[in-house]
């Protein structure tokens, strides 16, 4: 077996161990009088979620408009423009919102997490934490994991609203419909299962983004250059993991 394959297996094992340890701190930390600090979780929620709202809004609106334009064009070939809201509603909630938000957060927060941990590792800050008697997983990883597991589905829901509204504006104008008629058609098409499909995926993506960022950041080697490599690697691996998981999730859930 090649060295790369061994390293990949090693990293997957490390990720699983990190996830287990994070969950252990979340559920048992208080019993050991070493709880995961809510202030740290709130800070991460602000950083990963609230501060991402402007760019999330812009991307979601753009995706909604793009879907509306493409749907009207392709359905127009068959004279079925009036069904555009069906495709838009299902593809936004089941596919585009979780995927685009996952990619956005992997690029924005996954890389930041990797860079932060890599820098801390090189500056001996992780050693300092251990020696102070603070477990780095409890202090750094568990808050990020908790925060993103909450905030990525929230961002996905926000993206659903913005994308559907933007698409609605375009479609209703193009087809000379009222916005209320477009929205009631959209609501009639969507079932709770469609929303849960997207939210389930985004929860899974949140776990992947944090683990990929933490593994790349904490296994850094080679000074400042290593920090750059860890950050790049974290973005590439994070996005790849999201796309592959998206496909597997869609396949499994729709069988």
């Amino acid at each position, binding site marked *: 077996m090649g060295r790369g394959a061994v390293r990949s297996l090693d990293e997957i094992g490390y990720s699983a161990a990190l996830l287990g340890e994070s969950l252990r701190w979340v559920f048992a930390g208080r019993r050991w009088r*070493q709880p995961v600090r809510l202030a740290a979780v709130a800070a991460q929620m602000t950083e990963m979620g609230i501060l991402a709202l402007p760019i999330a809004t812009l991307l979601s609106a753009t995706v909604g408009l793009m879907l509306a334009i493409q749907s009207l064009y392709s359905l127009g070939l068959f004279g079925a423009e009036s069904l555009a809201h069906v495709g838009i509603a299902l593809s936004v909630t089941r596919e585009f919102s979780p995927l685009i938000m996952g990619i956005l957060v992997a690029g924005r927060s996954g890389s930041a997490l990797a860079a932060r941990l890599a820098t801390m590792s090189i500056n*001996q*800050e992780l050693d300092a934490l251990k020696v*102070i*008697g603070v477990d780095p997983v409890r202090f750094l990883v568990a808050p990020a994991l908790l925060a993103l597991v909450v905030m990525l589905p929230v961002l996905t829901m926000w993206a659903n609203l913005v994308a559907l509204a933007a698409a609605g504006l375009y479609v209703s104008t193009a087809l000379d419909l009222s916005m209320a008629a477009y929205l009631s058609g959209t609501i009639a098409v969507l079932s709770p299962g469609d929303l849960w499909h997207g939210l389930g995926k985004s929860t899974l993506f949140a776990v992947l983004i944090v683990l990929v960022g933490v593994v790349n950041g904490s296994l850094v080697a080679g000074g400042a250059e290593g920090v750059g490599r860890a950050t790049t690697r974290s973005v590439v691996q994070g996005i790849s993991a999201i796309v592959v998981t998206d496909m597997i999730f869609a396949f499994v859930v729709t069988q």
Partner: protein
Amino acid sequence: MHHLDAHYGSVQVLFDVNLTVQAGEVMVIMGGSGSGKSTLLRHLLGLEVPSAGSLTVLGRNMSRLDPLELTGLRRQMGVAFQGGALFSSMTVAENVKLPLREHAELDETTMDIIARLKLEVVDLAGVGDLMPSELSGGMLKRAAVARAIVLDPKLLFFDEPSAGLDPAVAAAFDDLILRLRQAMDMTIVVVTHEMESAFKIADRITVLDRGRVLAVDSAEGLRGNPSRRIQNLLNRRPEDPEVDAAGYLRRLAGGA
């Protein structure tokens, strides 16, 4: 430390190290680059697991402790890392308060007072609100000491305290170490390659060379040690080349 061996992968870095630090003394671990002193420190801190031998810190065998017991032991230890290792996202005061916040159930005002006191002890009064990036190298090291002593540890470690400091600041740092020992009655272990500093602060010095303990003695004892390797190290002379004159002559004469 009893017959301790350490490896990085397949490379052995420490060989059969035996070392005892007496309570209340300042022990300096000295050696050149690659001598294994940083590895030795990482083992003392429980950051590495020895490949053989045992390590007892404050009466507890490190290899027999579970993670929670190790955390408990570490509360009685403080470390000032070479570059300070302050958390860059927190102010200096928040850095100093972190061990209190994690291990002591104190209100915010009490923690503020303790942090201010510890910063005053290391001559850093008034810098609590600054970020670590706003401090000089010497100030960073002092702030790291304030954080290391905030829980009043029994055992304090310094990693290369004088490295990167100009002679005057380094001398002041040595004075700080001695003052701390006197004021707080701590056992202090200092890892350094600075001879002047070592001779000034040490009760005893352990000389490490290529992963082996060459000598453990007082500064005076080391000065009088007849070993050529120790004297080369103390006087910053390069190692004597190992010349096998008889073998060379035999080879010249065509012998085996």
